[in-house]
């Protein structure tokens, strides 16, 4: 089963390369040309979360002359890349949020020769101040069971990042599973199984999912009715409206180890060592904690003001890959609310140019390797109007038949007609309706401008007239072929979605990246 979760991650490894904070991302099939080796420059494969370290890198460069060239990627994808031996020659060092997952993968772990923790941040829950008061919580004594209780009573909803795409999501999942399984030590397969009913209940409270911390925060603000966010303390502390709680019964902490690679030469490793020393110097540690709200790792520097210094137990990280992957698999296929997605696919006449339709078919077919159990997928191809509405469900007892259905419908797509973007989107909203039990979203792929049916003004009016629950359904438009960026950006902004760019990157990559948001 774990294979299902990991399937389709190959392309993904390349996808999360770009800054997480940007609202448009470019999806790439392969890592943008790995940076060339230059003396005095360290090419570092880094977790996306480290993109807030730019001011620290500048300071270190001024002090030491060492230039850091980070390539950002999701932690789990970086581990996959290392495991495939693709870091060799492309990177001089690796800097992940945590090496816990890496250590479970011997093929990846063997590429690391030394590692030194640079800073730390525990997983925490940030709860709206008003909700804390309503629940009567004392932040210092809240446990995971208290959080579970509040969720079960319908008094607490939250958002978190996708554990398959983001280390913050994965660490959160381990924290929650350890906290709720009554496991007193490292999680085992049996603990996960036993805790499944409680975990299922807990994840009913999850109202938001996201491929990145940045979009999660945006979506949270936009919704306004979600009570809490689960993420690293450093991310949550940067917001004034949240009370940050480190559950009393334990946390999983990211310790950001800067690691040197076996494939590099001795002088490169010496530069990595010098960079590590510079990052661990008291002045830099102070800068890190003040700027990023992570905790310093040298005893002489105190954490930034506002970071509570009482100790927390560190929840043991699973000791085997089967437990870690099993947990991930359970989350995706059993525990989380399933997703319902409508793919609104432009199959107008212009799609027959440049092999566009073939690329769409290939991208969709590849994507079937990544759909989760219980997921509902609707294909809605359109030209001058919606051509057909086909819905498939990936049923746990027979996932194959749903996936085969999607592949068959994909093969039958053909290009003709004009481009009725807005009329088709309206149909997608009507199809999804209001639904409390799933993550609903719409993916819009178009290669041109709107030429038929409703116009943008009419769509704005249609959207404004939707019930609130339906307004919460985001549209994730994909920029492709000759589509109009302004038009699609407007749709993303209006509906609280996010624009993905397959003009610069690939269509496969864009579809894959959107998975983190579904």
């Amino acid at each position, binding site marked *: 089963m774990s294979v299902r979760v990991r399937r389709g991650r190959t392309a993904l490894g390349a996808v999360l390369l770009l800054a997480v904070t940007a609202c448009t991302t470019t999806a790439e099939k392969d890592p943008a040309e790995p940076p060339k080796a230059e003396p005095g420059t360290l090419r570092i494969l880094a977790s996306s979360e480290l993109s807030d370290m730019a001011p620290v890198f500048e300071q270190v460069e001024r002090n030491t002359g060492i230039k850091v060239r980070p390539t950002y990627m999701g932690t789990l994808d970086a581990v996959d890349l290392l495991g495939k031996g693709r870091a060799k020659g492309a990177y001089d060092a690796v800097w992940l949020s945590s090496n816990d997952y890496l250590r479970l993968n011997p093929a990846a772990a063997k590429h690391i020769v030394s590692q030194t*923790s640079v800073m730390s941040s525990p997983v925490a829950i940030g709860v709206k101040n008003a909700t804390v008061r309503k629940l009567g919580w004392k932040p210092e004594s809240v446990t995971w069971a208290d959080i579970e209780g509040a969720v079960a009573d319908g008094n607490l909803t939250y958002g978190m990042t996708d554990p398959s795409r983001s280390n913050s999501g994965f660490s959160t999942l381990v924290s929650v599973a350890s906290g709720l399984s009554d496991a007193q*030590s*490292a999680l085992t397969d049996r603990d996960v199984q036993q805790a499944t009913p409680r975990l299922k209940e807990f994840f009913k409270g999850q109202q938001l999912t996201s491929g990145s911390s940045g979009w999660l925060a945006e979506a949270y603000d936009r919704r306004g009715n979600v009570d809490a966010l689960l993420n690293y303390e450093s991310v949550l502390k940067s917001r004034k409206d949240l009370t940050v709680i480190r559950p009393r019964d334990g946390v999983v902490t990211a*310790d950001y180890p800067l690691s040197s690679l076996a494939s590099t030469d001795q002088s490169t490793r010496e530069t990595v060592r010098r960079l590590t020393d510079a990052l661990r110097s008291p002045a830099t540690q102070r800068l890190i904690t003040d700027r990023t709200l992570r905790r310093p790792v*040298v005893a002489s520097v105190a954490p930034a003001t506002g970071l509570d210094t009482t100790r*927390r*137990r*560190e929840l043991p990280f699973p000791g085997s890959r089967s437990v870690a992957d099993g947990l991930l698999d359970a989350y995706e296929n059993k525990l989380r609310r399933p997703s319902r997605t409508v793919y609104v696919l432009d199959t107008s006449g212009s799609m027959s140019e440049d092999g566009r339709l073939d690329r769409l078919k290939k991208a969709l077919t590849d994507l079937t390797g990544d759909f989760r159990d219980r997921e509902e997928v609707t294909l809605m191809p359109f030209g001058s109007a919606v051509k057909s509405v086909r819905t498939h469900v990936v049923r746990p007892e027979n996932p194959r038949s749903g996936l085969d259905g999607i592949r068959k419908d994909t093969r039958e797509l053909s290009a003709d007609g004009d481009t009725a973007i807005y009329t088709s989107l309206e149909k997608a909203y009507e199809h999804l309706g209001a639904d409390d039990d799933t993550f609903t979203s719409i993916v819009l792929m178009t290669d041109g401008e709107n030429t038929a049916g409703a116009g943008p003004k009419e769509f704005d009016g249609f959207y404004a007239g939707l019930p609130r629950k339906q307004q919460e359904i985001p549209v994730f438009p994909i920029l492709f072929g000759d589509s109009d960026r302004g038009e699609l950006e407007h749709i993303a902004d209006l509906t609280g979605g996010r624009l993905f760019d397959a003009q610069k990157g690939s269509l496969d990559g864009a579809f894959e990246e959107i998975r983190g948001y579904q």
Partner: protein
Amino acid sequence: MRRIVAIVLAVFLIGGVAAAVVAGREEQDKGTATKTVLGMIGSEKAEFFADPDVVNALAAKGYTVETEASGSWAMEDLDLKGYDFAFPGSQAPAEELAEKYGARQPLPRPFYSPLVVVTHRSTAEVLADNGLATLRTKGNGILKMSSYLKAADRDTRWQQLRGADKYGELTGTLFISTTDPTSSNSGALYLAAASYVADGGRVADSTEAVARTAPLMHKLVGVQGAQQSSSDASFRDFVSGVGNPLVLVYESQVASLLAQGQGVDDLTVLYPDTTANSDHTVVPLTEEGRALGELLSKDKELRKLAVRHGFRPQGAAVEFTAATAAHTTYLNQKLTGVRQAPVPASKVLHEMARQARG
């Protein structure tokens, strides 16, 4: 897996040393009579050999020492042809290597360091109140291994210990965090000490002996989940306040930190009443290697420098006692109340680690 680790570590040439080596070679070109010796060392001694004062002290005696670092338990899998000495962090692999390469006994053992458990004062007090430890000063004490192992065998949780409820971090199963015993010396030595105590003071010497303690050893390792691959990483995590309340490290790591004038907030060092020593043992592979081993054991300056890195030189303990006089709060200088557990032969310990981890 062990082989992979060995190969990876073997190619890791320590930076500072390499720089010193280059400098040394230049000197040689100018006609000075330095001998260059090549050694495979345990990674915990990398900082010692990289210390410029150590490089100078060795040069003063006519040596340029070139080193590569490897896990002590991984050296057996390496081809050490062309090396002058091996310097693992433990006696058992040293004996194994001596036999393999026909090195003459006795093997020089310049310094050693006992395994200790670092924790915070509040945690140590809870252990003491529950009969699992005794406190000597406010910063050090003795961990009662036999009581601890009984508690671990019963899956004791911190919540069951009197007084633990005052501290949020003291929940979950009571255990000591160690490194991975299949690849790292300190994790393996922990099993050596624990199995010795659990088997009523017998050193494991056979498959049957390993089998007798295997369930407990498996438990000690299994509860930890993912383990660090080096004691350096475990110790750094502890210093930065992340991780389990009880962490197994070498005394040398604590002493070295204290020697650098760095403190740890309410650090308490618990010496297990039965512990294993990391015996840094030189396996001479050439006559130069043997001479270097003797030098490290006898040279006053080098012994002093070893103490600076937290090691205890063999023989009279004067140097260590003098150098750590300011840190008696944390260090049990004379190892009062601490017994040393003999370490099983390399093959036996490997098997024990494999079963514990598996």
